[in-house]
């Protein structure tokens, strides 16, 4: 027996209470609920009893998650978290493999040249960087950053902007993401990794700058290059995984 509109709306209401974030997961569970309820109704059970029986099977689930602190989530949310952690693990290993591949490819020559050029020409007005000349290092860093961004954009796929629109960055623009649950698990995992790797490098650098710890010219050069390397590799990874995104049809709605 097919569910009518009112019954479907009731199931949708129940799902929205769970605050699910991932569209892929939402769709799968929503279909599971509807199919199970329809099958039960075919066997002569009324809608509300069927709905109740179906959701009871999910009620006892529990999963530990870490959002800064360890908490527990239950029911559908627990199931969603367990799926997220499986994909998160996979994406992490794939991303690190991608970085390693870049490191051992001929492209590494490009980065070695970048280090040499920077060392030779960029910081020749001072030998060490400290707070005394941080004004200059900030300005220098800013322009280097902008040029790397342009470089990364130029060297990436021409459909990069499209890919960004469809990627995790959309998450930053969309405020009602929980309500419509339109985000792919893989995107969130990649976004998290990207922010984490960039922040690690910046914080590491800031840490030394704040302590007024003299940073030698060569280590600064390596730092900045490492930053650029991670940045452009991540952009390349995001562009590459665009196909990976497409096959789960997340954004076609």
């Amino acid at each position, binding site marked *: 027996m097919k569910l009518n509109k009112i019954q479907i709306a009731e199931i949708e209401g129940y799902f929205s209470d769970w605050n699910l974030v991932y569209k892929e997961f939402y*769709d799968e569970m929503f279909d599971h609920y509807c199919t199970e309820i329809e099958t039960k109704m075919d066997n002569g059970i009324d809608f509300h009893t069927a709905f109740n029986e179906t959701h009871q099977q999910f009620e006892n689930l529990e999963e530990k998650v870490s959002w800064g602190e360890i908490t527990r989530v239950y029911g559908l949310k627990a199931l969603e978290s367990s799926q997220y952690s499986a994909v998160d693990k996979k994406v992490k290993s794939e991303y690190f493999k991608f970085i390693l591949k870049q490191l051992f490819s001929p492209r590494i020559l490009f980065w070695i040249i970048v280090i040499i050029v920077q060392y030779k020409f960029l910081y020749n007005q001072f030998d060490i960087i400290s707070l005394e000349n941080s004004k200059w290092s900030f300005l220098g860093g800013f322009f280097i950053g902008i040029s790397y961004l342009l470089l990364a954009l130029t060297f990436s796929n021409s459909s990069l902007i499209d890919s960004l629109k469809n990627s995790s960055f959309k998450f930053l623009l969309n405020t009602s993401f929980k309500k419509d649950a339109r985000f792919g698990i893989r995107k969130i995992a990649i976004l998290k990794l990207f922010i984490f790797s960039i922040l690690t490098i910046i914080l590491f650098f800031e840490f030394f700058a704040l302590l007024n710890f003299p940073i030698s010219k060569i280590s600064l050069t390596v730092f900045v290059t490492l930053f650029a390397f991670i940045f452009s590799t991540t952009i390349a990874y995001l562009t590459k995984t665009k196909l990976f995104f497409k096959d789960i049809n997340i954004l076609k709605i």
Partner: protein
Amino acid sequence: MNQHLKGSLSTIILKLLHDNGRMYGYEITQKVKELTQDDIQITEGALYPILHKLEAEEVLTAETEKVDGRVRKYYKITPKGNAVAVDRIAELKAFAENLNLILNPKLSLS
């Protein structure tokens, strides 16, 4: 039944997908129920984490299709996962046979 099922559930899922091509989550639970005449009931809390883990490991791949206005997610074994599936099914079969020898020693003598 549940404690015996735990370790072999992923192999049972692989066997079903191996025999039936592609299936969706609810269909898998119903198929197991039907084959075992209601003796084994896979819970959703056990089924989906395994499906998602196998998908992340690329043993399974998923495709979606619109059915009755809803998005249905079908799972099937990848070419890479096929070898894994065949291996695990053979292992479980051998285990079940050995288990039978232990549980029914008289039968094994005849």
